[in-house]
């Protein structure tokens, strides 16, 4: 029973996932989406378990002052800071979501024969705030600025150039000679799009990530140095192909002879491509066979011995 139930569940869901590929009916698709939702809920729940796992692994090492326990403190502190910064605290308060728009006195009536004056929008926002009044985009200066717009509905947006701040947005319907004053200060947000989270991501995580990625260049060099030692026939072939490829791709090879770029391209197009396709096809057949093995219940090693 302990093995049979998981086996049957696996077989049923696996068979359904396989059949779904060949049955385009929308009700099958709806059922599939439902199952995907279950999977998404499971995956989300697993992240909580993952967080608990990190605590279970690191906290005892900190408590016992094991070697390099300081790194664990940094890990937990970093996770805690990102958790706190990632929660949408700004929704707890009553932060403004739209700018303050005040209608002022109307402009003087035009002289006979003259067209009526276009509506005027007075913008008063801090210096680091950008505004969009209809089609006009500008940056605040801290002083009162005037924007003339066409009569009709006008979209008013206030935002900051740096990410992590809310955008204040509203609409106003204006007719000739109207004047309005727009004021507002986009508040800082918290959460995934908030200022703190984005700042840490861009200024701490991003550079660290790029640094690690850049290390790859040195690892490639050291690995290539080892791989290109002609210890046997295969390694010698590899070395020869690599030399031709480097000469074909570098300007030096083309300067020596057109043969190098052409030969390098031939190496890619014919032998390399043939090998790649063979591996791909073999892997695809292996993947199908593995999937069928699990669906058909032949593979039971993950369920344990009888």
């Amino acid at each position, binding site marked *: 029973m302990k093995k049979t139930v998981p086996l049957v569940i696996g077989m049923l869901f696996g068979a359904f996932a*396989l059949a779904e590929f060949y049955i385009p009916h929308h009700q099958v*698709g709806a059922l599939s989406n439902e199952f995907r939702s279950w999977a998404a809920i499971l995956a989300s729940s697993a992240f909580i378990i993952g967080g608990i*796992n990190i605590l279970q692994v690191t906290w005892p090492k900190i408590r016992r002052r094991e070697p390099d326990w300081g790194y664990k403190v940094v890990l937990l502190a970093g996770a805690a800071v990102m958790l706190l910064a990632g929660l949408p605290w700004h929704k707890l308060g009553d932060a403004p979501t739209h700018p303050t728009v005040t209608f002022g006195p109307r402009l003087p009536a035009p002289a006979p024969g003259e067209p009526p004056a276009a509506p005027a929008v007075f913008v008063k926002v801090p210096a680091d705030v950008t505004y969009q009044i209809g089609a006009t985009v500008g940056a605040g200066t801290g002083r009162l600025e005037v924007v003339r717009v066409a009569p009709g509905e006008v979209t008013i947006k206030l935002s900051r150039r740096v990410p992590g701040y809310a955008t204040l947005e509203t609409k106003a319907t204006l007719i000739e000679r109207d004047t309005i004053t727009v004021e507002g200060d986009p508040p800082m947000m918290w959460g995934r799009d908030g200022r703190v989270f984005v700042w840490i991501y861009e200024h701490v995580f991003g550079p660290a990530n790029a640094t690690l990625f850049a290390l790859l260049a040195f690892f490639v060099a050291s690995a290539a140095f080892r791989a290109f030692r002609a210890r046997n026939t295969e390694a010698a072939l590899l070395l020869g192909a690599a030399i031709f490829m480097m000469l074909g791709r570098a300007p030096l090879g083309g300067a020596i002879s057109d043969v190098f770029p052409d030969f390098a391209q031939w190496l890619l197009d014919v032998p390399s491509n043939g090998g790649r396709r063979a591996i791909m096809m073999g892997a695809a057949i*292996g993947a199908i*066979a593995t999937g069928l093995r699990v669906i058909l219940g032949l593979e039971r*090693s993950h369920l344990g011995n009888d």
Partner: protein
Amino acid sequence: MRAGVVALVLGLATAAAAQPTLTPFPDDPPPAHAGPRPAPPPPGQPAPSQPAPPPLTPITPPPPVRPPPAEAALPGVTALEVVAPPNDDGRHLRVTFTRAPDVADDVVTAVFRRVHGAVGAPPVYPTLLAPAVGDAPRTWDPTFAGAADLPVGAPATGDAIGPWTLTALLEGGEQLVVDEVPPGGTYEYVVAELRRGPGKAVLASSVGAAIGPRTPEAALVNTDRLGYLGIVLLIAGLIGYYVRAAKGRKQDLYVRRLPGVDAIEDAIGRSTEMGRPVLYVTGLEDIQNIQTIASLLILGHVAEKTAQYDTDLTVANYYPLTMVVAEEVVRQGYANAGRVDAHRPERCLFITAEQFAFAAGVSGIILRDRPATNIYFGTFYGESLLLAETGFLTGAVQIAGTAELTQLPFFITACDYTLIGEELYAASAYLTKEPTLLANLKAADAFKIAAMLFIVIGVTLATMGVFHLGPAVFK
């Protein structure tokens, strides 16, 4: 009246008022002045089936209700057809039509849809333009149904006009729309050309071509994928055949050696002798990835061996769901070896779901714990060389396996053994030595021979210009 300002009527809108005998759709509710519907069939006789879609007939331009056109009317579309696409899920209708030649660039095509028989609005099709006021250009009003004052705005996809929905506004001269519709309904369509002016306000419209009712059809089998189904069924049949054959045999099936898999037990033994742990990395994809599944199947065998040898096993996971499953697999492996008490769940680690942070975390484990054996099975990307080179620096025996073509050269360069592509999927069966699972490998090999024959025949036929086998089987 400003030139170009015309009264617009869609389909047979005004026909209902001006020509009561012309009804565009068979089931349209009759206007108040129209005659009664035909009597229902007598009892005992089957009800007539849904009327066949009417063939496209040129729509007679009805006389305008609103101010008469001041310029030549826009030519409408012709050859309007609405059909359910083949192999559809029952949510689409394909609308095709032909535009008049030399249509100006400022003319767009609007496709309207309504539920068949919808009577939420007047039984005439709504006029799309507001009445003219002074010299102002006519403007579009999605809510305007013929009785409102001057509206503002421009047409946009999704606008509702009475029972009609503007499902597509084609600006690039397209003559085909695949319209997504709620399943199970029956729909009518009207397609009209619109000339737009400043602010994309509509200045003029052609008479709409109308068609309906049409019903989307949900296919039960995607015939375009039958070729792939054939592959799966053929492999399943081969598996069945070889499993049956394997059960009848007394001697083991021959499967070629996989040095990388054979090396796993040796490497674990080396770890035991050195008193260092074994590190197992399950790759960078989630549990639904077939390479991750293959990796977890192998993990069970590795856990069983480490339990037998009493060696620590550390499992590094990229996703927490993979970690949960990996922990269960390891627990089962220890149970298979009769060493459940030796299982330490805290050695199944969730590192992080960020690629290079994961690489840094695993590299840290390699450098701090100095495992004597590193096993990388699953899907890997750019971090593969970071991990493998770090492991090489510590002098560990490294075994890798992936079907990611771009990472294979890195693993081959930096690791002692590498399982290439299909070998990763074969490893679990190879380790068990069970006849039923080895039969699975034989079936895959048999299919490979069939695939090679298919390729050779297909290439020969295509080279001779006789027949293109591939495109015929796999659409």
